[in-house]
């Protein structure tokens, strides 16, 4: 039997796909696939470092997509969940998918298939939440700016939505947890990383970098939010279910509470 090998990649999605390519190509008995900044050596396995190769990654991407569109989005979404050990699980998932004659049907009675589709669902939910909970604040230099702190790395997933929607304004969405953001300069979206001194969540005191009418609109929105409650139907539990507390500090309508 071939010795089992731990593959080490650079942490990017393309890197992961390259690792999958190499594993298939060289018929490697994969023990684990790990990011290069969190390597843990196995006792009985060798390690091999994978260098990201776009063409190889593309072949894997197309291969999965030709099997099933559903599967490729599951793989990408689940990968962005950054959950521990997801790479090996995805590798098994891809193996199963490639072995199946008909990739269209998913075997939900299989533990890994079900788990991957549930993970993808979680990430999809976070993506949808971020499309809803981003709150732009207008700065003095005419950029609509927002901080977010999502559970999963969803910036790559939401950029298309915001580009299509806010095509005539400059905007910047910054992920405070992962320290990078996406910026739209009226032409295309690019990745940026900033040296943020301050996180602009909904503080009561006003910041000088924001445009003067910004706080007026926040007040109006706050008022609007409060006047939509129907007192005789109040249901705080349901409210928290829909708007979990961890998002509150970035929602301007929750200013009073935070």
């Amino acid at each position: 039997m071939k010795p089992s090998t731990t593959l080490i990649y650079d942490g990017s999605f393309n890197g992961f796909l390259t690792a999958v390519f190499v594993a298939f190509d060289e018929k490697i008995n994969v023990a684990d696939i790990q990011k290069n900044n969190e390597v843990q050596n196995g006792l009985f396995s060798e390690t091999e470092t994978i260098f990201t190769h776009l063409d190889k990654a593309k072949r894997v991407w197309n291969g999965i997509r030709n099997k099933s569109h559903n599967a490729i989005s599951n793989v990408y979404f689940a990968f962005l969940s950054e959950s521990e050990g997801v790479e090996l699980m995805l590798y098994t998932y891809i193996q199963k998918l490639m072995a199946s004659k008909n990739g269209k049907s998913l075997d939900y009675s299989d533990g890994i298939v079900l788990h991957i589709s549930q993970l993808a669902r979680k990430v999809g939910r976070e993506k949808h939440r971020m499309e809803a909970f981003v709150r732009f604040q207008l700065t003095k230099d005419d950029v609509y700016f927002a901080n977010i702190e999502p559970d999963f790395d969803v910036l790559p997933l939401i950029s298309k939505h915001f580009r299509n929607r806010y095509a005539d304004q400059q905007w910047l969405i910054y992920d405070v947890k992962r320290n990078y953001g996406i910026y739209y300069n009226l032409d295309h979206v690019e990745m940026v990383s900033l040296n943020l001194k301050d996180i602009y969540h909904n503080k009561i005191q006003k910041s000088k970098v924001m445009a003067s009418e910004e706080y007026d609109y926040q007040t109006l929105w706050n008022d609007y939010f409060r006047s939509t409650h129907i007192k005789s139907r109040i249901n705080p539990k349901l409210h928290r279910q829909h708007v979990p507390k961890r998002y509150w500090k970035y929602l301007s309508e929750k200013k009073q509470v935070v």
Partner: protein
Amino acid sequence: MDFERIREKLNILADAAKYDVSCASSGSDRANKNNGLGNASRMGICHSYTEDGRCISLLKILLTNHCIYDCAYCVTRRSNDVKRAAFKIQEVVDLTINFYRRNYIEGLFLSSGIFKNADYTMERLVSVAKKLREEENFNGYIHLKSIPGASDELMYEAGLYADRLSVNIEVPTISGLKLLAPDKKHEDFTKPMQKVKNEIIRYRSERKIIKNTPKYAPAGQSTQMIVGASGETDKDIMYSATYYYKVYLMRRVYYSGYVPVADDARLPAIGSQVPMLRENRLYQTDWLLRFYGFAVNEILNKEHPNLDMDVDPKLSWALRNLHLFPVDINYVEKALLARVPGIGMKSVNKILHARKFRKLNWEHLKKIGIAINRAKYFMVCDSRDWERRDLDADKIKGMILQSSMGKFRKQYSTQLALFN
């Protein structure tokens, strides 16, 4: 902008608009045009939620709360002593655009009290939508209220700018309408609906020939009924909802538990409970009709004019039709699989996919996520373990109620409370 004045108006006019339940922003796929502002998301986005747990996705306001009518159930009725205000057209446009740019909302839901007459009001509503679309190049979602009695020409124009149009029929029965809103006629409600429906059909057929036919109300029509204001049965409500779904091709019918807003002998007194559980059961029935393939007379009929409060309508249908069960989950066709209590449409699809690979047992079903405590009395699977006792409906119901806990249980529990 006179900030304080706008603020005051917004408070008054948003407060009056909150009794409209609909806040859907889904169903339209209007794309962003010429790098303008906004687009509509087909599945809709809820940007926030009220403290009673309803979605906030649109800026829902009245243009004015002045009204010439005196409908008993309405908070802006003529005889009610409340502060009145009215927005200028430009003010609504500015608010919408600025909220939208900050990603607070999906678009605008504009309704209005009726001042002067129906056409005058409708014209104002249409001109807000027109201004947003043509001057601001705004492609977000716009929901306009059709004013009862508005002319066909205005309704036609409204559909060109709005994504959704709605008329609230409010009272499901004609006799109830006579009692509670004596100034309004039933035809006033149906006339604009009919016009919009005809235009939607016409535009759809034109689109088949000419692909770039402009959009006409792409998210269709909806309506709303008040529940528990005029003593109607659940059967009355659901039958009339089915009628509106069928005849006017409604996308949605909303059910709104009556929130007491007036001291009137014709209505439940102020301070009486909002019938939230009943509202919930009506929505469950609505879903069964639209997605699960039930016919309305299977759930509600002469023998059963009202829904059971203690169990959901699907379970209560299954308990009345025990001769159809148990079914084998690995072989039964989709239509009947969807009728097993405790299995939703998501699980139905997963089961259909999964059973191509292997026969499913309880473990699999549990992981897929069906509610086994309800389903187990109605199904068998690939396991020697299944309900062998010949239980009657009451017995099953009792056992299910014992093994589960619903959030509304307090309201209908017959068990005596120890401490009151």
